[in-house]
């Protein structure tokens, strides 16, 4: 017989060791599956994953810049999530940000000095992302519509909008591609710092993450967000204008998603496609949840996801495995990490029918010692 009961509280070291144990168990399970399904030595596979992610300075830079982009989107979703507003429209908000940046580069790319151009791109991408988020927010605040569905639907609109403009701006005509924008002039491209293409992106996101942490935890706005998220009634009771907080927070959330779009277009890809956001709007949902809405912890959770992604790509080439195999391993590891939360919140006690009381005592003591 198994009894499940809720734990009251747990010291930090204990919850950390439960999470660590979950990862170890996940690696063992992954190892068994790797061996039985592919016949490979799991240790070699793991080593190759690490090599794929950290193997060379170039790989580390790619990892860091992927981390920066994912982290940026996660940080963008965080204020909305803290308010229990489930913004699943990150993908669309990034895309309209990309669209706005690309439009500026194409329309006024050669007419303005680069810093001014980038400043205008910044404004437009922020505005576009904010607009995409504030529409569902307005409906939520005014008529209490379901924000999950609404933001999700906005993604499809954004994708189609981008698809339309890709045809409008395609180079050469009929190719269905825009190609690299301003390849010769590099107008609207982020400058390289110390000869590194990605460093600016990384620094910007690092600053943004710290700023968001401070905003959420120490500012009056952040406090209002927490109160609204916990209880709308309490917020009304102390005179917080709930509708205003929802709109303001989603403007911010959408604007940062738009900013991620700018980083993609001006910082890394210099082009526009419908798949430019690359699912980050959804992966970021997982990152924020794993980090329990703490921007600083998100550095770790997005690192984990980016590492798994890059590592999975490496093993698929190194061992000639299907790319999906890497995804299976990622899935198993995430399953165990998320599953470990159950053991942090709840306690299991085992006992049998005949000698129940004694064994129950033994089982609980054993659990405590373990």
């Amino acid at each position: 017989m198994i009894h499940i009961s809720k734990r009251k509280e747990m010291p930090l070291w204990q919850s950390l060791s439960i999470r660590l144990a979950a990862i170890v168990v996940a690696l063992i399970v992954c190892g068994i599956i790797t061996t039985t399904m592919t016949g490979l030595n799991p240790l070699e596979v793991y080593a190759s994953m690490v090599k794929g992610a950290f193997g060379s300075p170039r790989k580390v830079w790619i990892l860091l810049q992927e981390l920066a982009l994912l982290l940026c989107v996660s940080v963008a979703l965080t204020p909305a999530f803290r308010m229990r507003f489930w913004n699943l429209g990150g993908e669309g908000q990034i895309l309209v940000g990309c669209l706005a940046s690309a439009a500026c580069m194409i329309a006024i790319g050669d007419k303005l000095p680069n810093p001014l151009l980038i400043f205008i791109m910044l404004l437009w991408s922020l505005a576009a992302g904010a607009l995409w988020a504030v529409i569902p927010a307005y409906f939520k605040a005014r008529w209490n519509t379901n924000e999950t569905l609404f933001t999700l639907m906005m993604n499809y609109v954004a994708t189609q909008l981008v698809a339309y403009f890709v045809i409008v701006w395609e180079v050469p005509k009929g190719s269905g591609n825009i190609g690299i924008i301003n390849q010769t002039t590099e107008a609207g491209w982020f400058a390289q710092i110390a000869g590194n293409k990605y460093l600016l992106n990384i620094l910007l996101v690092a600053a943004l993450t710290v700023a968001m942490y401070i905003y959420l935890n120490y500012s009056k706005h952040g406090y209002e967000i927490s109160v609204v998220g916990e209880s709308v009634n309490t917020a009304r009771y102390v005179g917080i204008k709930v509708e205003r907080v929802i709109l303001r927070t989603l403007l911010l959330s959408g604007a940062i998603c738009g900013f991620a779009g700018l980083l993609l277009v001006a910082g890394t890809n210099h082009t526009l496609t419908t798949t430019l956001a690359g699912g980050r709007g959804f992966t970021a949902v997982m990152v924020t949840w794993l980090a329990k809405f703490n921007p600083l912890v998100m550095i770790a959770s997005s690192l984990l996801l980016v590492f798994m992604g890059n590592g999975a790509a490496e093993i698929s080439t190194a061992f000639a495995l299907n790319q999906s195999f890497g995804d299976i391993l990622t899935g198993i590891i995430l399953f165990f990490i998320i599953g470990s939360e159950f053991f942090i919140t709840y306690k299991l006690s085992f006992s049998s029918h005949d000698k129940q009381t004694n064994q129950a005592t033994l089982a609980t003591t054993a659990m405590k010692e373990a």
Partner: protein
Amino acid sequence: MPEKQCAVSLRGISKAFGKIQANHNVDLDIYRGEILALLGENGSGKTTLMNMLSGIYFPDSGTITIDGKPATISSPRDAFAYGIGMIHQHFKLINVFTAAENIVLGLQDEAGFNLDEAKTRIMSVCDAYSFEIDLDQKVYDMSVSQKQTVEIVKLLYRGTEVLILDEPTAVLTPQETDKLFAVLRNMRDSGKAIVIITHKLHEVLDISDRVSVLRKGEQIGELLTSKATAEQMTNMMVGRQVSLNIERPTPQDPRERIRVEGVTVRGSDGVVKLDNVSFSAYTGEILGIAGISGCGQKELLEAIAGLQAVEQGSIDYIEDDGTLDSLIGKDPLEIASMGIALSFVPEDRLGMGLVGSMDLADNMMLRSFRQGRSFFTDRKAPEHLAEKVIDELEVNTTSVHTPVSNLSGGNVQKVLVGREIASAPKVVLSAYAVRGLDVNSSYVIYDLLNKQKESGVAVVYVGEDLDVLLELCDRILVLCAGKVSGIVDGRNTTKNEVGLMMTNLGGAQ
């Protein structure tokens, strides 16, 4: 008198939740033909102990013996099999079903299910104990007391021999309580074992044969009710000497502070919640509001506090110089910015007054966090306030950084009341300020309200315990289905009078 027959016997029962020891080494015997009162303050482990009998929790250690044989109760189904049934504070009934349907729900052993036959059997149970019940009435049409009757009949119909009731009178009027007690006595006389969980002493004295007192999860002692006194039981329950008298100083220089005239409020479902309500609250006075729960008390306070839209009528705040400020159509922030210091202790503490996941300090600044021009919040002042409240109201917490949802009910309420009073209010509105609180905490709250009254605050006290309303309040406004049934002088009224006014407008039979 024949030898008492022991139905259930608990020995050395312990149960812990994480670091909190809810029960420690408790011994308890439950006899047939006897009503046992399980008395203890909030968080003393009464409900946990009984939940282990009804199969909700499983003891960490100890043994349960039923009719002399060792028993394992690991689910409510097991408990039923042993003839143990428990009525929880929150009823577990299906609203759209009738009484009869709810009573037979989940029974599998009926050969060829026939509701009419079942009804006949249910009626014979009801007649045996003189229950008044309409088997075809839907649960959503029932009063709280009728729902409770259905719960009890449901257990008896299933052959329950040991009946546990968790705070059964918390939601009943005095008349309904009397009826319940009469039924319980009938059940006792027919040989059932009855356990009633309560912290109300007069009920213990009224109904029980034996009383067992728990304190901090441990059994302190057992008394025969016939030989026990209220003082003795309180001292066992609290662990030290407590005075049971509530003070009622005479109001000093009362002046009209809040004037409510002809207020009508409609709920979100379009039902009229308050119907043409008029009254005044005076400075230096505690105005009690009595009524069966859900008769418009919540809407009345929320209308004054600016949280409830008013359809008709006026609510005015009267300043010291006699100026009238209308409160209608203002939200709490606007009321505060008019310079009106109005404190509100709402009924739903963690759902409205406080934020459960935030710590004490952060909850202290709910009202004040906007102060100052800085973009950032000032965390020092609320921390000091939290420390002051912890100190003055003896809040039991590990630190100012404990989330309030981890505190017990009484401590949560102290935090809320402490914050509301700290703002030096002119008006204090409180809804069920002592609901779920133990004796000790309740008296702390009464003292606080009296201090506010003495310093010239107009206090509105919505309460459910008539004994307390009669002892604490200067005047009592009785609500009946959203209407003012009458306003009586707290010093010259009786429990019976107020009880009748609660059920009939104007108290007419």
